[in-house]
């Protein structure tokens, strides 16, 4: 079978030495991790390798020899390298040699107990050690869900990625260390570190503790008995602002926990929540700074009352029209008058209430607007709640009308079975035209609320950190690899370059999206319209997981 040698591109210019790495015998491939230079004592090398093996659980061993000669091929050196094969016994012993600046290396294997003396083909695959080490290989989504996934059928390339990722400790020694072993790998010119990252790591521990303490205080207050009485608890559960705040509190608790993330998904989730919170608060503060300039709050408060008045006037006109003879239809006068007067009284009460509140509106808006600094999603939820509260009277009309309409529809459907084929009794349709018109207004309000909820859900569930990572460091999220064939020369092994193939944006969003609490999935728009038509009540504040009655 073909022998595959994965060689790190950073070691192409290394001095002569021996190659250490992992031999994967099932796939007949050797993953080379580093080059150990002369002079070394074989016993110390073996000790070091067993140490590394113990810590990383990767079976690192000496795989072969590497000779990089600037001049002509030295005969003595090649004999010396062959003799090394007897000290570090490994089957097969790989010998790679590079002459001068030539791109084409010669690669051969020594098999001591070879039963077939045939020369097997060798493929040399170059890989970027740093990128492969930092990359996380994502299995295709179809196989990720299969339950009978045997370890032997695991992707061969994931074995290569795993080997490099787990050998981090091997890359921690650079050439400035005074140890007995001199290695060349991607970090041998100096271990990479960032001052900012180190400072943040130091600062994060006390910050997390402070945050946990504050959060425990806040959640203690929220859970106190005072807020649990029936009217208040009903109100808290219905307002979407409270739901969103609870959601964000939960997110903060996830971030500020002291435990380190166990695996990739948890780490990405934490990072996504953190970045999403940061951007949310930044946008909220931006919105606040825009809102509090040039007395915009005052203008908003000033226009609110006239708009409410206007809506009330339009509704009153509509009801007067319906109480008469709308579009020439003859209606049940008594029922019309009762319902019309009932609804008119509602509107009168509502307008009086709004006028009563009018001097305080600006102050309320000012203080409520301050809560936008908690995040843009909170501001949008408050907007949605304000709309709901302002149009509450319309919702009451809708409830009365819809209940009556529902009763009528039930009556009609039972009669329909009896009187099939006969002419439809129009007289029975009396109050229902009223419901249709109210339904339009109600539909508009429901659509606006639905859009706001959708926007909030989108902002909540979008994995921003993953998307930014995919944009800036695309090699960290790998869907697979791609090979590029480099220049070939006859007689020399096949040269390939292995590069990381990044995950597509759609898969990034699908894999890392955050769970939300919404009740407006895509397919419920049709059920919404169906409910409207049949007269079933729509509860715009019902959330996923609550019982439907």
């Amino acid at each position, binding site marked *: *079978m073909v022998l595959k040698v994965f060689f790190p591109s950073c070691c192409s210019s290394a001095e002569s030495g021996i190659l250490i790495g992992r031999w994967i015998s099932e796939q007949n491939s050797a993953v080379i991790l580093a080059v150990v230079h002369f002079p070394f004592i074989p016993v110390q090398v073996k000790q070091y390798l067993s140490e590394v093996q113990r810590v990383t659980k990767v079976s690192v061993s000496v795989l072969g020899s590497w000779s990089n000669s600037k001049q002509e091929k030295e005969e003595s050196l090649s004999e010396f390298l062959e003799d090394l094969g007897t000290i570090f016994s490994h089957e097969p012993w790989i010998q790679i040699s590079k002459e001068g600046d030539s791109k084409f290396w010669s690669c051969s294997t020594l098999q001591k107990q070879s039963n077939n003396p045939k020369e097997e083909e060798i493929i040399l695959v170059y890989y970027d050690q740093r990128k492969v080490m930092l990359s996380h290989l994502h299995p295709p989504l179809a196989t990720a869900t299969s339950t009978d996934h045997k370890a032997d059928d695991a992707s*061969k390339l994931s074995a290569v990625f795993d080997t490099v990722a787990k050998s981090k400790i091997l890359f921690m020694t650079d050439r400035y260390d005074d140890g007995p072993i001199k290695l060349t790998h991607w970090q041998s010119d100096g271990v990479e570190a960032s001052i900012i990252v180190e400072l943040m790591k130091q600062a994060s521990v006390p910050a997390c503790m402070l945050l946990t303490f504050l959060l425990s205080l806040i959640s203690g207050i929220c859970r106190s008995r005072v807020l649990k009485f029936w009217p208040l608890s009903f109100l808290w559960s219905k307002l979407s602002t409270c739901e969103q705040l609870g959601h964000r509190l939960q997110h903060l608790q996830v971030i500020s926990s002291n435990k380190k993330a166990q695996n990739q998904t948890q780490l990405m989730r934490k990072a996504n929540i953190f970045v999403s919170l940061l951007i949310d608060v930044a946008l909220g503060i931006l919105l606040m700074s825009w809102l509090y300039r040039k007395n915009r709050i005052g203008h908003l408060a000033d226009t609110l009352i006239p708009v409410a008045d206007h809506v009330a006037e339009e509704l009153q006109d509509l009801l007067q029209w319906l109480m008469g003879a709308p579009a020439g239809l003859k209606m049940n006068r008594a029922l019309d008058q009762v319902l019309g007067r009932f609804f008119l009284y509602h509107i009168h009460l509502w307008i009086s209430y709004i006028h009563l509140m009018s001097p305080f509106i600006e102050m309320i808006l000012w203080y409520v607007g301050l809560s936008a600094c908690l995040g843009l999603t909170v501001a949008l939820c408050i907007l949605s709640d304000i709309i709901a509260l302002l149009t509450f009277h319309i919702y009451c009309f809708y409830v009365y009308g819809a209940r009556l309409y529902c009763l009528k529809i039930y009556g009609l459907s039972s009669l329909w079975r009896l009187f099939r084929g006969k002419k439809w009794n129009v007289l029975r349709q009396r109050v229902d035209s009223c419901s249709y018109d109210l339904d339009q207004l109600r539909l508009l309000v429901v659509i606006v609320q639905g859009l706001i909820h959708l926007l909030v859900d989108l902002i909540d569930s979008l994995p921003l950190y993953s998307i930014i990572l995919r944009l800036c460091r695309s090699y960290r999220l790998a869907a*697979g690899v791609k090979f590029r064939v480099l220049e070939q020369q006859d007689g020399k092994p096949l040269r*390939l370059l292995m590069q990381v*193939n990044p995950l597509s944006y759609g898969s990034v969003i699908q894999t890392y999206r955050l769970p939300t609490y919404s009740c407006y999935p895509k397919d419920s728009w049709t059920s919404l319209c169906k409910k409207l038509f049949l007269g079933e009540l729509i509860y715009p504040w019902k959330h996923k997981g609550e019982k439907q009655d």
Partner: protein
Amino acid sequence: MGERRYRSASGALVALRRRQHSASCRELAVRCPRLQLRSLSAVTSAVWLAAYGLFVLSENSMVLSAAIFITLFGLIIYLHFVKVDQESLLVIGSLGIQVTSSYASGRESTTFIEMGQVKDVVINEAIHMQKVIYYLCILLQDPGDPQGVSEVVPLFQSSKPRLDCLIEVYKSCQEILEQRKTAPQSSGIK
């Protein structure tokens, strides 16, 4: 190995280029016909004439600038996401098969399928509108069932070469796939 011309399913000329990099590595690339200048001019003129007609009706010059913007944007989207320049297949024995599509804007979209997952490469036939067309596809192994096929990956979907071209590609692929059957000593536990 050189380049030969064939016809695609719709009658356009496509070119097949075969390269042998080593005994177990072959690259087969099918080049699609380029974007024709006359079709591009026809579409652009049609859009601009329609926009001019709208402008005459509505007296709003925004229509003209919108038409220019739409044409430019549409052309960029078409070249970057739709128009395929070349589709190639790189078969590396004992590593896998790599399928690449290069778009007219230079973008390349690559998928690599490991040799352990490849069951076979076959030519299938499909009924498309009023024609029967042949296409080459890779059958992927079902990990649970050794006789089963978990997925079918069709190749050369934009260039759609005809049967004679497909037979050449098929023969090249099978020569390399057969090598893995003759050397099973390190094929591992399947």
